[in-house]
């Protein structure tokens, strides 16, 4: 009978200890998760991140992503508002400019994405692209638009007979 009580007491102690440890681990994980989501550097205005061409055009800007406001989400991710993505030719001429209400920018991988709308215009105004949802890979200058893409290409002056 005494052994039986001891067994019950041991089981109760073990259960209580396990419960405490589990609760502590859960609390730690919650704290850790929240810690990852807390903005590290707050909000900044006039965000801009640029990439440059390789030599011999290293002085020339290749592309730039900028925004009126940027909120740091994690060490790498920024939420940028009133986004402008510009891509330039090696001679400095503007190739395209893309505008979106907001996007998430991964500054480590130089990738921006958003489920929202995107409007693009070429530097000479002859190309217009609209769509919903995009992924911009800055290093490769590769733009993926997810849905409802519409491109309008204005043709140069008539050459046909």
């Amino acid at each position, binding site marked *: 009978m005494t052994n039986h009580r001891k067994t019950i007491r041991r089981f109760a102690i073990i259960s209580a200890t396990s419960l405490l440890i589990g609760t502590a681990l859960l609390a730690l994980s919650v704290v850790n998760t929240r810690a990852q989501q807390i903005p590290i550097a707050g909000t900044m205005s006039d965000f801009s991140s640029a990439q440059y061409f390789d030599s011999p055009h290293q002085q020339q800007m290749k592309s730039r992503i900028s925004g009126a406001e940027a909120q740091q989400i994690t060490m790498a991710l920024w939420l940028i508002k009133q986004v402008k993505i510009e*891509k330039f*030719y090696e001679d400095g001429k503007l*190739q*395209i400019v893309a505008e979106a209400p907001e996007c998430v920018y991964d500054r480590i991988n130089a990738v921006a994405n958003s489920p929202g709308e995107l409007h693009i215009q*070429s530097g*000479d*105004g*002859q*190309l217009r*692209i609209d*769509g919903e949802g995009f992924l911009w890979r800055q290093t*490769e*200058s*590769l*733009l*993926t*638009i*997810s*849905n*409802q*893409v*519409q*491109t*309008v*290409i*204005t*043709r*140069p*002056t*008539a*050459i*046909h*007979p």
Partner: protein
Amino acid sequence: MKLKYFAILFFSCVWISQAQTNVNTNGVDAILALVTTNRPAPPPAAGPGAGLTRPQGPIKIQAQGEAVFDLNDHWATYSDHVQVTDALMKLTCEWLKSNLPQNSTDSVTNIVAETNVVIDFTDKTGQQTHAIGDKAVYYFHVQNGVTNETVTLTKNPPNFPVVQHGQDYITGSNIVYNLVTDFFYVYGPVQAEGWPGTNTPAGLIPTTAKTNQPVQPKPL
């Protein structure tokens, strides 16, 4: 107007099929079907739309699905219910790749459309033609002031691309539409089916011309 050229096309095919028996046609202004040649024929000096100006509206490309723009190499690919329209052409397909003009003097020069390709052409005189294939290649090139603008339609064997104009149709392994001259070039084996009169009621037995014989282009 377009029907006239289909009729010419049809009679050309009849002439091709009867060539070995020395039966010739007369009054044929142009040979539109060139059978079993390996390269496109040069555009004729005067086509049905000669002297008319092709409208130069914008090119619109729409897609329900994903589009990828390679801004380094100046290419764009579109997928899922792709539709291309300009003033005289409407093309639908499932996948399309197009070059992107680099400056205001450039034009779209290369387009490749694949899978369930359907094209509705309108020539300079307003006549419409319907074409179906698996793959269409648009090519635009200006050299020495001469414009080459073609759409080449192909389909995986054993099927062939089809061009329809009203009740008339013609098939071949390759169909090339010259947008400058409004001529269709059909490369063999060619099969054409036509009703000589536009008002001929459907249901009459159509005349069919078939040939596998390589034939040299007939001088105009």
